[in-house]
């Protein structure tokens, strides 16, 4: 049937058309404020970040050490059992050099982003974070990295208490 279609109604409106006022422009601002419940597991995780530590949860049934921590094991479908402190070092599982921000606007300085598999957690348990103190062209999958923390007075119990991860290098 598609080959029988020869023309379509309508035409494209460009951002310039809108700027020039060729079309009615209705601005809708939706600015809700949320106070999210971080939950039992993540509240503890954030409290530990404030102390400069990373904590995980262990399921004694499958023996996985889970990070981000959760109070239940989604595979075994039972409560997890214990808190386990893990290290603030890890390995780059994958990375990217982002030239765009949240709303797709181009950035002057790219954001370096990675999934970092943390030491002490079950292999493959990564978290999303930023990379720093490294040339983009020098980043490699498999590179060893360490968390760079904000000072204790600056930390507020947030994922950004870790500024970024940097290569461990020759330490």
């Amino acid at each position, binding site marked *: *049937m*598609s*080959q029988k*279609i*020869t023309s*379509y*109604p*309508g*035409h*494209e*409106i460009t*951002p310039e058309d809108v700027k020039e006022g060729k079309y009615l422009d209705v601005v*809708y601002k*939706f600015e809700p404020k*949320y106070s*999210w419940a*971080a939950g039992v597991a*993540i509240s503890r995780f*954030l409290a530990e970040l404030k102390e400069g530590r990373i904590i995980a949860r262990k399921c004694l049934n499958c023996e996985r050490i*889970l990070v*981000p921590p959760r109070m239940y094991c*989604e595979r075994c479908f039972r409560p997890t059992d214990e808190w386990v402190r893990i290290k603030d070092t890890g390995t780059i*599982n*994958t*990375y*990217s*050099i*982002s*030239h*765009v*921000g*949240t*709303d*797709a*606007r181009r950035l002057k300085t790219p*954001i370096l*982003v*990675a*999934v970092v598999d943390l030491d002490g957690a079950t292999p*493959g*348990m*990564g*978290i*999303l*974070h*930023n990379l720093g103190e490294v040339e*983009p062209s020098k980043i490699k*999958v498999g590179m060893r990295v360490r968390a760079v923390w904000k000072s204790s007075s600056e930390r507020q119990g*947030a*994922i*950004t208490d870790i500024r970024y991860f940097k290569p461990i290098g020759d330490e």
Partner: protein
Amino acid sequence: MLESPKELSFEATRMALDSAGLELKDIQSVVSGSAPDAFDGVHMKGEYLLDGMGGIGKPNQRVYVGGGTGVFTPIGGWWNVASGMYDTCLCVAEEKMSPLHPHPQYAFWSIFDQILERPLGTTLLWIFSLEMRRYMHKYGIKEEEIASVAVKNKGNAVDHPCAQLGAKITVEDVMNSEPICWPVKRLDVSPPSDGAAAVVLASEKVAKKLTDQPVWLDGVGWTLDTTHWTNRDLAYPEYVERAAWMAYKMAGIKKPRKEIDIAEVYDPFDYKELHHMEGLQLAGKGEAPKMAVDGVTQRDGDLPVCPSGGLLGVGNPIAAAGMMKICEVFWQLRGEAGKRQVKKDARTGLAQAWGDLMQVGTVAVMRS
């Protein structure tokens, strides 16, 4: 596009009814598919779209699994008909991404974890660029090999009457395009789009009365994985494999690579087509790039993939893009795809979509 979401839906729905030789009074139930409400800024979009989709006064359900929605919509229709509840079901998918400024991508910010991920400045492109990099690393895949998919699909789309980005380009063009989120470059990505697509599903007895050339929905499958996407093997979409085997078992398919003649694989990014071909068992792990480079997936190849032009070429109006793939398989199996018609005699086709935080697989197997 100028058309409102309801008008877009009407255009597609009317075309589907005309194609089936039916009127709305012949339709017993309606399944609608549309992805994030945030694009339109209209909450509860299923209800809003209802009249353009022919759903007034009929049993209606909206299905929604992000990018997987397009193929999930006819799966929802299949529940309606295969259960014996209805003999005819209209399945309509619509997406209008253009209303949101400065960029529709902004709507995706809120799919990330609000406490652990959003504060890092997330953009949707990250999940793709991180997955693409991991996939390349695991199997030693080159960016040029991946780029060949963009070249194929945009080239195929030149023959599609609805195509937004049909073009004859080269691997070099892709490699030289702006690195927006390396390894993802501008031409590795599908565009934001507006669109709608629709099909009519009918029970066996009704379908045989309507046409001598029915296309059967022989297998459907869908699974979701957790939103803990950073805990997952990013090089292999296991949830797509699970969905695929569910559909293959239903359709009696044991060797997908041999039994599937054409595949409309979900391709919002060029590497995604390859990644999904592997999940769908149409290529061994890490082996899809070679098939693309060797021309196996071209329209005249042994396994044509995205003969429509895919999301990379036709466009990516999220839910409608998946449904566009269902429509393409329908036309290909009936020999009605015109210039896009594949060379081989296609009897069994597959459409697949994917979505959310690397977690949704939706698969449909169709036969003529």
